[in-house]
């Protein structure tokens, strides 16, 4: 069934493409020329004298070419009066040689660091040696080898100084990309640029019905097909200065694949992958106690001792309230209607009676005889949470056609990806069409263009966050351990015989998770076009003009439906339409000329940018609901409908220039400047930057030895800005948006909560950076080390003011944050043997330390976000993102003080954590032996705390294993002895705590004492594994039409190898709530991470 569907979809797209592709084929055919005589020869490595298999031999000026065979031999036909051959092989320097019979070609190994070309700002390719700043790139192979479905996931662990966090394992979830640490209080998102044109990479998310649940519709980068990407360069600091006010947080520069040839013929490439996805990391649950309240033997005995329960009462009778005693006891569990009419059947916690000891208790699924719910076996269902998840399936198929010649090139690809989530009834499909082309009209005029069409479509995306619309809120945090998930699944379409509402284990607070997923759905559909075209005019060798236009455009539609939920029993819906258009036009003049030993490389340009965005939504309000359940039309809305409409428009103009002067390939001095005029801010702003690159091994040739192959020292100083969003300089009254905008038909207008500021300035980011690049042992070991010092000042802050001022926030320019950091990339060809075993290892390591130097006048605390009374503060003198909340009161020796109630005494507003990791590291290893290659990627994070709402509630509700460890529920706990054993607990007089309290009393304190819910976010993950077999030419050549074939076994998110010991609930530290600044340091009910395992095939024709 799966396969059929794909074929159908692909066929549909094939039809649409037929016309375009036909045109392109015709161009391709025209590129191939006729032929005449032939020569033969052999290609060897100059390093070890071994023959090179698979080297490309091309006739210069033509598209005629071949590939060397198993002993390095080739034979090639020379058309017309062709004389020279171009011989190339990966890792070797390309050679141009005169064609003659029985020729021997020796290829020198490539001097990577000297000759490497890298894509920099505005999409300009530069020699890496001339750059005075840190830029790191990831090539297509490295990006795609584990067949990650999203670009951002594929980048994880591969670039130093870049932290990528996915908002949980839900299908289509967004990711947060952070370069060189958190510094801004607004957004720390980098700018994303595709083929020189900015695209909107922000994550779309909508709030759910109760304003807390979040519908994460994914990051903009999720729209891009990783297989269309040739290269990603990450501009980390000052190198981004040419992008001016949008590049303050660095730039992700994506270069898409361009036309390539296979021996002068059209090249067809197919990439396919098929993976199965499984939730592989769940907390450990207890299976000793079920739903209810005070159901343990601890309470049973305590109440018997106090006389509240008659002494003769059996545990069975106590557990179900079957005795005559104090009416205030109300302990145990008995199901009547699931809303509290029985004994605690409206309580969604697992502090009830003991399981698996033969008790019989009326439960939600017990039969009703003569109107009475019968008592049935009170037993555990150890896998009930695991049973909820299913095996997800993902597949992707991409086919690309390309060709190139001296006159031009093209590439056309279509891609399809389909994901079925690990959460039932969640899915996402993505379709991509990419067309790129380049054509030289004549000696002076050329053009290139690219067009990407992307479609992302989901029938249902799960709501996340703390909301009843998120099924995981119910089953992860508030649940009865005795509940049989399979029973909920089998009966989710049934109706509860007592309440008439959907069948569930409780009728308060929660709805059956399957009912939720199948009836309360969120569909999402997005169409996006990213296009770019340039015309180049090159009057001389050293001068070139470019006119460039880029357009990024999307429309998306979200349709949220609720048939029934306990919070919104009357159902509701909302359709949200959004569109965004961004036009960028640039005129750029390039200058490139040598004057003796001096080279001058310069550009000057101007940019015009116009961005419009609109969003409109209509539907029913949650409180009023619908007339007819399940009919989601405006006519069916009760009372006033929900409507909302908002717009944004930003325009900017910029001029920029850049010049690099090089001396004899040894020293390069570069200067840039940019001036921006933005509609969002009154004044214009100017950013200069300068950098220096010096290669001592060129200046002093004697430095070069067998040990030191290459040394470069670089430094730069740069200023970049961050502008702001539209309409922040004037005061505008607003209308309520969460409920009806009118009351009794009268429009309501209120003051904004933020006092606007007519004199806003852009944020200013100053970076100083020094670095060295070095190669050792004949280029076997490469080192790139950078140290930076970044100061973000004049931040545009919505500073919280006391609301007694009449506003909640004041909009000002203030605040200074410094970030200092180290980035290290170390790669080594540990074993190198052209035709034998090879081992390459790359380590990316980085550390960023931020410090809030100052905030506004008289302000020492700025709230970045808060949730459940845990605050993420920027506090003067501390790093960005210090977590505050209620925590333990300790004495002078750091011992936890226990109060008269046996619980730790707490203090409010205590520093309880910090979100910044100590360091990050990614370590990749690639092994190859003949046709086999193997690689894996480890991803480390040390430190970085987060507030785990899941840990807070899952403990509070008694679901986790440690809430029923040993005999603590039967005999109680002494804090510091039975629990909280990593701390010393003392009474007010300094003596050891000996007060026994019930287990629930202690674990309830996870709700009030937030220090207990701060989790160290350290992890070690096996991020990717791949095992690839490249079919030998000898086999491939027999097929006549296949040029290259590979098959890989791939796995991503393979395993969490280690988590910090204080991560009690075993939460994946990457399960953040979303992808914005506000999500940092907060976790809530995310879908657990998923492990993908599958097969990937790559064929070139």
């Amino acid at each position, binding site marked *: 069934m799966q396969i059929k569907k794909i074929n159908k979809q692909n066929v549909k797209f094939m039809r649409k493409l037929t016309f375009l592709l036909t045109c392109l084929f015709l161009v391709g055919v025209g590129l191939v020329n006729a032929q005449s005589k032939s020569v033969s020869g052999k290609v060897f490595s100059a390093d070890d004298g071994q023959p090179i298999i698979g080297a490309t031999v091309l006739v210069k000026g033509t598209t005629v070419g071949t590939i060397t065979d198993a002993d390095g031999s080739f034979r090639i036909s020379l058309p017309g009066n062709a004389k020279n051959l171009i011989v190339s092989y990966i890792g070797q320097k390309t050679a141009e040689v005169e064609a003659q019979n029985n020729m021997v070609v020796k290829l020198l190994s490539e001097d990577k660091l000297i000759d490497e070309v890298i894509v920099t700002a505005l999409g300009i390719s530069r020699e890496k040696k001339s750059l005075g700043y840190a830029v790191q790139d990831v090539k297509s192979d490295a990006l795609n080898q584990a067949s990650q479905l999203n670009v951002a996931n594929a980048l994880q662990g591969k670039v130093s100084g870049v932290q990528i966090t996915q908002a949980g394992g839900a299908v289509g979830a967004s990711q947060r990309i952070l370069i060189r640490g958190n510094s801004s209080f607004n957004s720390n998102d980098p700018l994303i640029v595709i083929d020189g044109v900015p695209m909107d990479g922000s994550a779309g998310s909508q709030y759910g019905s109760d304003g807390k649940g979040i519908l994460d519709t994914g990051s903009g980068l999720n729209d891009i097909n990783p297989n269309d990407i040739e290269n990603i360069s990450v501009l980390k600091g000052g190198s981004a200065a040419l992008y001016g006010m949008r590049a303050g947080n660095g730039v992700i520069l994506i270069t898409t694949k361009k036309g390539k040839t296979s021996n002068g013929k059209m090249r067809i490439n197919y990439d396919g992958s098929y993976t199965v996805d499984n939730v592989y990391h769940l907390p450990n649950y207890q299976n000793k106690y079920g739903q209810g309240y005070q159901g343990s033997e601890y309470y049973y005995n305590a109440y018997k001792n106090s006389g509240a329960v008659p002494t003769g009462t059996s545990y069975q009778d106590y557990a179900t309230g079957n005795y005559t005693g104090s009416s205030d006891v109300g302990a145990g569990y008995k199901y009547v209607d699931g809303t509290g009419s029985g004994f605690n059947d409206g309580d969604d916690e697992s502090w009830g009676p003991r399981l698996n000891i033969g008790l019989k208790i009326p439960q939600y699924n017990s039969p009703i005889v003569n109107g009475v719910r019968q008592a049935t076996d009170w037993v555990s269902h150890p896998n009930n949470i695991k049973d909820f998840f299913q095996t997800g399936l993902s597949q992707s198929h991409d086919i690309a056609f390309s060709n190139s010649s001296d006159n031009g090139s093209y590439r056309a690809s279509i891609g399809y990806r389909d994901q079925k989530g690990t959460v039932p009834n969640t899915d996402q499909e993505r379709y991509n069409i990419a067309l790129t082309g380049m054509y030289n009209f004549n000696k002076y005029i050329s053009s290139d263009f690219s067009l990407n069409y992307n479609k992302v479509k989901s029938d249902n995306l799960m709501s996340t966050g703390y909301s009843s619309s998120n099924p995981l809120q119910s089953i992860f945090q508030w649940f009865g351990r005795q509940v049989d998930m399979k029973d909920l699944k089998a009966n989710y379409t049934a109706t509860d015989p007592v309440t008439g509402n959907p069948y569930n284990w409780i009728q308060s607070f929660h709805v059956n998770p399957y009912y939720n997923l199948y009836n309360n759905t969120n569909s999402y559909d997005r169409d996006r076009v990213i296009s770019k075209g340039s015309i180049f005019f090159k009057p001389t060798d050293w001068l070139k003009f470019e006119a460039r236009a880029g357009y990024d455009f999307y429309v998306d539609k979200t349709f949220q439906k609720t048939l029934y939920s306990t919070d919104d029993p009357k159902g509701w819906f909302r359709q949200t339409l959004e569109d965004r258009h961004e036009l960028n036009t640039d005129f750029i003049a390039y200058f490139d000329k040598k004057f003796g030993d001096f080279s001058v490389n310069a550009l000057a340009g101007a940019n015009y940018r116009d961005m419009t965005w609109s969003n409109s939504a209509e539907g029913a309000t949650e409180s009023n609901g619908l007339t007819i359940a399940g009919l989601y039309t405006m006519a069916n809305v*009760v009372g006033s409908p929900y409507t909302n409409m*908002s717009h944004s428009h930003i325009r900017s103009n910029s001029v920029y220039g850049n010049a690099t002067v090089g001396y004899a390939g040894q020293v390069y001095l570069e200067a840039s400047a940019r001036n921006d005029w933005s509609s969002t801010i009154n004044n214009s702003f100017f950013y200069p930057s300068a950098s220096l690159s010096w290669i001592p091994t060129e200046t002093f040739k004697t430095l070069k030895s067998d040990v030191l192959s290459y040394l470069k020292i670089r430094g730069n100083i740069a200023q970049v800005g961050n502008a702001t969003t539209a309409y922040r300089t*004037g005061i*505008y009254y607003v209308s309520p948006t969460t409920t009806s905008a009118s009351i009794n038909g009268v429009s*309501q207008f209120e003051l904004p909560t933020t006092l606007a500021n007519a004199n806003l300035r852009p944020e200013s980011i100053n970076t100083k950076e020094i670095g060295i690049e070095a190669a050792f042992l004949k280029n076997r070991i490469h080192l790139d080390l950078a140290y930076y010092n970044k100061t973000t000042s004049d931040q545009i802050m919505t500073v919280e003011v006391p609301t007694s001022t009449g506003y909640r926030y004041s909009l000002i320019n203030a605040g200074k944050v410094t970030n200092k950091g180290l980035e290290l990339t170390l790669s080594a060809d540990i074993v190198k043997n052209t035709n034998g075993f090879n081992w390459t290892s790359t380590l990316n390591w980085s550390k960023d330390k931020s410090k809030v130097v100052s905030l506004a006048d008289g302000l020492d605390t700025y709230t970045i976000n808060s949730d459940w*009374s845990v605050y993420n503060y920027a506090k003067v003198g501390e790093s960005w993102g210090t977590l505050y909340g209620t925590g333990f009161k300790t004495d002078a020796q750091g011992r936890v003080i226990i109060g008269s109630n046996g619980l730790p005494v707490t203090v409010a*507003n205590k520093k309880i954590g910090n979100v910044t990791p100590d360091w990050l590291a990614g370590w990749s290893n690639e092994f190859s032996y003949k046709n086999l290659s193997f690689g894996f990627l480890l991803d480390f994070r040390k430190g970085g705390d987060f507030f785990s709402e899941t840990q807070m509630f899952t403990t509070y509700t008694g679901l986790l294993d440690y809430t029923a460890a040993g005999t603590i529920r039967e005999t109680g706990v002494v804090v510091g002895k039975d629990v909280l054993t990593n701390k010393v607990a003392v009474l007010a007089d300094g003596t050891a705590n000996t007060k026994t309290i019930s287990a629930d009393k202690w674990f309830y304190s996870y709700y009030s004492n937030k220090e207990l819910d701060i989790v160290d976010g350290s992890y070690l993950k096996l991020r990717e594994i791949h095992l690839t077999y490249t079919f030998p030419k000898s086999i491939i050549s027999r097929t006549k039409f296949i040029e290259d074939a590979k098959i890989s076994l791939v796995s991503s998110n393979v395993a969490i190898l280690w988590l910090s010991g204080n991560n009690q609930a075993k939460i994946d530290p990457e399960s953040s709530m979303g992808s914005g600044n506000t999500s940092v340091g907060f976790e809530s009910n995310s879908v657990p991470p998923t492990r993908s395992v599958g097969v990937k095939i790559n064929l070139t024709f």
Partner: protein
Amino acid sequence: MAIVLMISSCTSSFDQVNTDPDNPSAKLVPTTNILAYCLRYSADNMFDSWFDLNESDGFSGQIAKWMYNDEGYYSFRPTVNTQSWNVCYYTVSNLQSIINKSTEGSNMWAVATIYQCQIFQVISDRWGNVPYSDALKLGSGVTKPAYDKQSFIYPDLLKRLKAAVKALDVSGDKLGNGDVLLNGDITAWKKYGNSLRLRIAARIANVDPSDAKSTFEEILGDATTYPILASNDDNVFFQWNKEYPEPYADYFLTRPNEYGVSKLMIETLAGANDPRLSVYAKPTVNYTNGVSTTEYAGYQNGLEAAANVAAYSGIGTRFMAVGSLTGFSPWLRSSETYFAISYAASKGWSVGTTQQAAYEKAVTLSIGENGGSASDVSTFLASGGKYDGTQAQLFTQWWISVFKNGMEAWSLFRMSGYPSGNIIAPDSYYPNHNTPPMCYGYPDTERNLNTANCSVEAAAEVDYFWGKQMWWDKRTGLK
């Protein structure tokens, strides 16, 4: 040159580009629509589960939460306190923008002033000394408003109310359709303003008798100039309709088993054979099902343990119409006005009536408000509610009459110590206290952002809720 021209021609459009197309500037907004917002927003958020049901209604001893009763035993959520503070100050801030935009002395100016005084009364009743004369001035650069003492705030409210009511002119400017509280009825606003003066005067009667006395005597000495809320038709109730559901009912819609009437209220009503019992409370489920003979039973508020809900009485449908979106939020009742007059008479002030007559009128109004008949009234006044001249009776009846206005019930209790059965939560989160909360602690935002001003006032707080008695709370022996 071409670039410079391009830039200058394009930047000229920037002002237009950066004008919000969706939201009106201050110039364009009519004051009546801001008024509509203020009236709806304040009623919506000051009579809901967070502001009222969970906390002040529990502190006053009227409502008991049946499960997840953290607030009931004072394990409160700091963010809720912050939000409550914000709700109040957003409202007075929006009212201030009406005051600033309208002509001084106009009806719109007067109505915004009266309503602002009402909200400030609640603010001070809840938190004590608060930013008042220095508040709402961020636009003039005041980022840390100074606090005023209650001894300044209440008398000033009386002054402002007097001036505002005086300015009201039935033939003056129209309020527009934004008066969703009193439908543009200027006379109704006069009655509201005057009765509010009486409420505030009664509040400070023990600490500022001269202001209180002169207020009572002025208003009650000239009924024509100073009309008051005199019948149940005059009650200042925010009436909800389906655009915005009544906040209690809205909450109850999804959580039917969370709140009930307190043990204290049930026992007080039942003990006096009060006809309001069956209106305030519902029979227990066990009684309805024939399982129990106890028709009305109240759960003790302030217990940590969840109630066996079938054994206790829920809140009557007049106050919490489950499944219906209509209902009311009571700002000020005519019965309260007469209890205040009775209280003033008990002090010997000249209020044109006797303590007993005012008391009986107040009780009559309250029973009538709840649908009781004339014979219900006469029976009650002859038996359980028979006038005895005591402050205990006056305040207990007053307390009963303000049902569903937790703030007012809590304040009346703190003024008088009645009903004396309103005990501290049995499972109080904070040991060593002997009375329900005396006030609210200041929200974290004030502590963190207005530290110098707030810390002086907060110094008197003990465990957030105690230590700082209201200026008008003269009870002794409390800790």
